[in-house]
């Protein structure tokens, strides 16, 4: 009898334990949100655009180091109606303008720039139109589609790093259509259906994502065989003419629209280029970043545009979070350099329309 009691107790305990676990799994499946992986955050943040390839979704949600975003898909507060006595500055570029390593929007250099100029008693509004991973092609499109209609007094063009990637993608085209593609947002995984054994389903969802998740670059860039011989051959055939053309076109368009323009070479930390890249791609960046800086200098010379040369006057190394993105210290240094250039080069005068 004693043995039977024990066996019964074990059996009952096993069944009860299993029922508790299974019941808990079923409840968890119903109430817990789907697991959001890092790359899925980017899926939420961006949306396709027929002229820009992609944009930050209007009023996209805030998440760590991303946001807030206004109705134009820019990082920052909602824009106010244009006031004639307020000097409007628009900053155009990639992630180093957007501030992908800046936790708060107040740490992004465009916002710091606004504070610095306001502290001098200048009525100014600075718009952060940076979009992560934008090349000069997307920046040019954004200038026409979104920035110039805002009637800026001054446009700051700060880019160069993202134009290196199209150069080592094969089958180069001068409009970067060999690199960028049209795309649609991947669907978020649906909550798992509770089958006969919910605990098994739950374990599956925690180890196997239901749908392919993709980072921004994977969604918006054309896939190719990413092997050294392909990339080396593409790089050898490439040049900086497209980047130069786009930079020159942006300057011409700004001036034609009555806006002043301030150019800046890409700030970077050469000693940190190797981090996160393979050796071959690190080599492309080591070669490409100075080449693009030279392009920006040449465009500034051709167009007599004011220039901030971060290659000649670099941001201190402790201002970098990686080879090109700034931390809060670095953002402050960038903003200070831009503010100084605006004052010293007398860029605060509104041009007649």
């Amino acid at each position, binding site marked *: 009898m004693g043995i039977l009691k024990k066996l019964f107790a074990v059996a009952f305990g096993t069944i009860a334990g299993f029922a508790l676990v299974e019941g808990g799994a079923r409840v968890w499946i119903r109430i817990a949100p789907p697991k959001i992986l890092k790359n899925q955050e980017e899926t939420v943040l961006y949306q396709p655009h027929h002229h820009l390839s992609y944009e930050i979704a209007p009023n996209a949600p805030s998440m760590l180091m991303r946001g807030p975003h206004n109705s134009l898909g820019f990082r920052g507060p909602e824009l106010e109606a244009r006031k004639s006595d307020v000097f409007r500055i628009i900053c155009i570029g990639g992630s180093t303008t957007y501030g992908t390593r800046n936790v708060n929007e107040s740490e992004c250099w465009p916002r710091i720039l606004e504070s610095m100029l306001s502290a001098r008693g200048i009525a100014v509004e600075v718009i952060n139109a940076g979009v992560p991973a934008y090349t000069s092609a997307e920046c040019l499109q954004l200038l026409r589609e979104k920035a110039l209609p805002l009637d800026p007094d001054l446009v700051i063009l700060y880019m160069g790093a993202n134009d290196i990637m199209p150069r080592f993608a094969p089958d180069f085209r001068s409009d970067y*259509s060999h690199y960028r*593609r049209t795309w649609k947002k991947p669907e978020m995984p649906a909550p798992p259906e509770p089958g006969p054994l919910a605990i098994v389903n739950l374990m599956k969802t925690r180890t196997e994502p239901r749908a392919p998740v993709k980072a921004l670059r994977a969604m*918006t860039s054309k896939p190719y065989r990413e092997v050294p011989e392909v990339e080396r051959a593409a790089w050898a055939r490439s040049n900086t003419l497209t980047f130069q053309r786009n930079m020159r076109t942006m300057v011409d368009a700004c001036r034609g629209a009555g806006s002043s323009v301030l150019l800046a070479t890409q700030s970077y930390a050469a000693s940190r280029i190797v981090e996160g890249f393979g050796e071959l791609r690190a080599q492309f960046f080591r070669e490409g970043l100075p080449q693009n800086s030279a392009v920006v200098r040449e465009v500034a010379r051709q167009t007599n545009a004011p220039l901030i040369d971060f290659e000649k006057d670099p941001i201190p190394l402790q201002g970098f979070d990686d080879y090109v993105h700034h931390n809060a210290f670095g953002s402050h240094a960038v903003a200070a350099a831009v503010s100084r250039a605006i004052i010293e080069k007398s860029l605060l005068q509104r041009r007649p329309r």
Partner: protein
Amino acid sequence: MFRTTVRVAAMMIAAAIVPFHNDHSLQAQPKRSALDAFALLNADAFEPHPYFVYTIRSGYNLPLPGGSTATINALGGRGRALTPKHAPRTRRILFIGGSNVFGLMVADGETLASQVEARFAAAESKPTESRPAWEIGSFAVPGYTSHEVASAFSLKWIDYEPDAIVVGDLDADAFAYLTEGYRNDYGHLWKMWIDEGDEMKSKRSAVNAAKQAHPLALAEFVLAAVPGDEASRKRALEQSNTQSFETNIKFLADVAAGRKIRTLFILPDSRHRSDGIEIRAVKRIREAAARIFISKNIRLVDSENVPERNLSSSASRNEFLSGMVADQLTRMNW
């Protein structure tokens, strides 16, 4: 002397009256809706583009709604390809724009660019220092609005180093004004054509060919919406504005000016549209374009100066228009 004076006077009076005379024997055909013609374009001749919505595939012979075939050269333009390098003592003229400049209803030799080229070829013998040769290229794409033309010019066509561009007539923007849900980026008109990859495209073409099915139309891939009935189009027109159009053509003009590229703009023709609402939409484009180009001191050609008798066909329209365009090009400050 008196008879001569009377004859001259009669000729002058006749010259003034004739363009306004409604010649019923040469009654202009109601203009085929450009949207109808666009709807017949085969998607196989185009490919998705991340910045211009779509582009023509190079080297493809495109069957046209009018019955002819457009020869697309290796550069993606219509007709003869430009030489890779801008030859010395040559004036390179690019024709850019939408369906009318492309020549959706005409053969290769009847497009506006071809007719201008033919005029210059007939007028000139050997190029000299003071009278350079003319090289004409056409990069217009059917259906392009001011957004796509401005994008493609700044990201692609400008690389061909033109000395002048002829832009016309951008009346596709009218369809943006006539389609409800207006957005400044024309996202209410266009949708993103998802790149299925070459393998999928080949498979689809093969399936269509095997079934002898009608090839899929470009419009199915790129149009998000089309103009609706009269009430819908009226509402759409009231909700829309020309801000984007003005930004785009200003951008085009400024980018060209920055490179010292001369610009000639062809104002669209509001005559023979499907109805009064479409006429109003096209007139809106005309007014906005005239306002901007006159303020920028840019030459204009008004396609409404083409007499009615020349509107019996697109080819005869282009033939007359080419004279006006050629005249303006030769008068440019070279």
